[in-house]
């Protein structure tokens, strides 16, 4: 990595106050660092207070700085079994790379390393030409992907954490990760001691994995006589009911045909009002249409919940010993800050502006290739093979992304 990046990182860290390095319950956390150009993580570090962490960081200027989601008795022990696990925050990681947004057509490319086939957009599972799965990707982020990630964060919190899991608004923190997405750290005691298995259940819950609507009250009492939950019910029980209601309410005939057989779709579409009235009634009634069975409901349900399930990197949630980025540290692949987001005003949060760490100065760079990029208020590209002078933050961003070199 280029010396200039290291120098600017170092300047940034020196300029921070000790309190900016604060992490809750520091003495029980493990800290880890990745140096510029380094491949091996420096791990098992312990810091008693923010000042000593700052001192270390200013002295060593790492490219990436992490702390453990876990609390340990002896965080500095090198053997994981000797650390003495005392619990861990529950973490959700939302990464825009995993969300299928339309903007990816504009800024992402993939290439099969086997046969050389190339394409734009979200990478395919396997190469459409040779069928191999050796796909290389070159991905970027833009406002749209980050906005999609933000929507996921809001969904996780407002749809699941608060109503279902009883988490209060003071029990979690939201961070912009400094690059592709957001992290939610839930610190309440409820989750602290959960095992990996317990965390997996939480992850599956918000991802809609393993949902069986027959276990939520949907039942065929007699042929075509269908009973089911009330939209006011809690948990997934009410959620499925509301989702189906909303879906059918908005669905075109075409939408319904994608979910169920044409005949059922037609009868559902023509009797929409009555169908919805029945669901609203007390007790709700879920049947009454010819050919409309429990199986039809199951199909409609899985089509309806698509927007309700959360796109998270489940590995992070399941892991009770994960390393996560320190607040206010810089992301070595973007030069942006890992920044705490005030949840009450998350709608207005613009990560590409507020997470900018280098607000002054400019830099001359040679850009190999880049799509349109915005950092702060500066926009650039798409461009290729060009040398130009740009604001420092934008220049460092492109250099960190590996798309440009200082000149």
């Amino acid at each position, binding site marked *: 990595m280029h010396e200039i990046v290291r120098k600017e990182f170092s300047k940034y860290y020196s300029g921070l106050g000790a309190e900016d390095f604060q992490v809750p319950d520091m003495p029980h956390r493990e800290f880890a660092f990745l140096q510029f150009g380094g491949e091996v993580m420096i791990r098992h570090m312990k810091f008693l207070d923010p000042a000593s962490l700052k001192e270390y960081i200013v002295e060593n200027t790492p490219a990436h700085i992490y702390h453990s989601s876990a609390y340990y008795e002896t965080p500095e022990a090198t053997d994981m079994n000797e650390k003495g696990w005392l619990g861990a925050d529950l973490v959700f990681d939302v990464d825009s790379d995993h969300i299928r947004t339309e903007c990816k057509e504009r800024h992402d490319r993939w290439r099969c390393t086997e046969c050389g086939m190339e394409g734009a957009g979200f990478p395919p599972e*396997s190469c459409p030409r040779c069928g191999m799965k050796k796909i290389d990707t070159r991905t970027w982020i833009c406002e749209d992907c980050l906005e999609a990630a933000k929507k996921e964060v809001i969904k996780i919190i407002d749809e699941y954490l608060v109503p*279902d*899991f009883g988490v209060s608004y003071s029990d979690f923190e939201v961070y912009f990760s400094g690059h592709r997405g957001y992290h939610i750290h839930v610190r309440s005691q409820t989750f602290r001691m959960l*095992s990996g298995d317990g965390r997996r*259940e939480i992850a*599956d819950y918000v991802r809609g994995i*393993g949902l069986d609507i027959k276990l939520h009250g949907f039942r065929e009492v007699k042929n075509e006589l269908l009973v089911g939950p009330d939209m006011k019910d809690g948990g*997934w029980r009410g959620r499925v009911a509301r989702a189906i209601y909303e879906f059918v309410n908005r669905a075109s005939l075409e939408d319904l045909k994608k979910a169920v057989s044409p005949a059922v779709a037609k009868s559902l579409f023509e009797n929409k009002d009555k169908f919805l009235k029945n669901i609203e009634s007390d007790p709700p009634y879920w049947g009454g249409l010819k050919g409309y069975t429990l199986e039809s409901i199951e199909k409609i349900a899985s089509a309806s919940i698509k927007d309700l399930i959360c796109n998270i990197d489940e590995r992070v949630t399941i892991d009770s010993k994960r390393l996560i980025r320190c607040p206010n540290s810089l992301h070595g692949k973007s030069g942006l800050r890992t920044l705490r987001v005030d949840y009450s005003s998350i709608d207005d949060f613009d990560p590409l502006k507020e997470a900018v760490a280098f607000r002054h100065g400019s830099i001359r760079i040679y850009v190999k290739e880049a799509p349109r990029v915005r950092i702060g208020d500066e926009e650039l590209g798409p461009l290729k093979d060009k040398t130009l002078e740009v604001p420092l933050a934008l220049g460092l961003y492109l250099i960190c992304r590996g798309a440009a070199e200082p000149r």
Partner: protein
Amino acid sequence: MSLMLTKEDLAKYPFLKQSAAYIESMQLNLGDLAAEEYSGILSKALMRIRDSIDRKIRPVDLSDPESEIISYPLSLALVYGSKSNWLLNRFASIEAKRVEEELRKEPGDRILEIAKFGFSWEIERVDLKLEYEELPFSIPLQSYLEAATNFNDAHWKLINRYVKGGSVFLNSGSLARLISEGFKSKIIRRASEREMHNFRIPDTLAPHMDEILRYAQENMQFDEELPQGLVSDARPPCIVAIMEDVKAGKSLSHMARFALTTFMVNVGESVDEVLKLFGNVADFDEGKARYQIEHIAGMIGSRTKYKPPKCDVLRSFGLCVGMDQFCKKAKHPLNYYRTKLKILGGSGGQTGARDRKKGV
């Protein structure tokens, strides 16, 4: 305390705080229990263990609750002293099953009290009425997950439960099951505590210990061993899919790699065979891979042989691809493999038809 616990209750539910207190009040010494005057208790304890080996659920003998109460810690001591994980698991599950059967006969309020005195679960009476269903109890989310993650059935998955405001709502049957599972975990967890590592059975009880171990040994052999070497046709869909990814040169996620390796090692493939599998993968580093596989096979490091993750886990990681007739019943890929092997063997008479040569 709104409930009077009788001696019979203490005998039925050995995990109650009051049961432990009662035993303590007797000031018995483990070594003394081999004496003639306690022979009734000793034989009860031995029977408890033998029952668990035989998977026999015997109702509590309420004609003599006192010796029933004391026989529990004695049998537990013998099981811990045996240092046999196999015996520990058997004992814990049969004891738990017995408790569950007793609990199912109790009215709701009693189940609630028993849960409170047995564990520090903050269970509440809520009487939630849904359409065609009533959920009288609520339990905090974390307590639910503590016990319920040991179950594999779909209806225990959190997503299929009524979850609201940090609580899980249950009917009394489910609560009884949770309590018995909590009891089971308690027995098993205790065994891995530090003080238990140095625990030795007093000499006076040693002959009985030997007898138990012999009996356990005989029965353990019935727990089937898998044939050596992979039988391709019996592979579960998830493993087939991972192998196809490998063939296509995809770099595997950590979980996929772990699942495949553990699976192969557990069906009796050698480290070399497993290594060959990975030869085609883009980011392959033989030295590192060999180390990992040997570690998984229990040849180095902690020396425990790792098992593949259960279906539930594979499902969360997006690695479960199949829902064929065997998958519907399987909770574990090895389970799937075992069942299918039997069926393959039964119809075609080709059990053990190994195809190492065909590779993947």
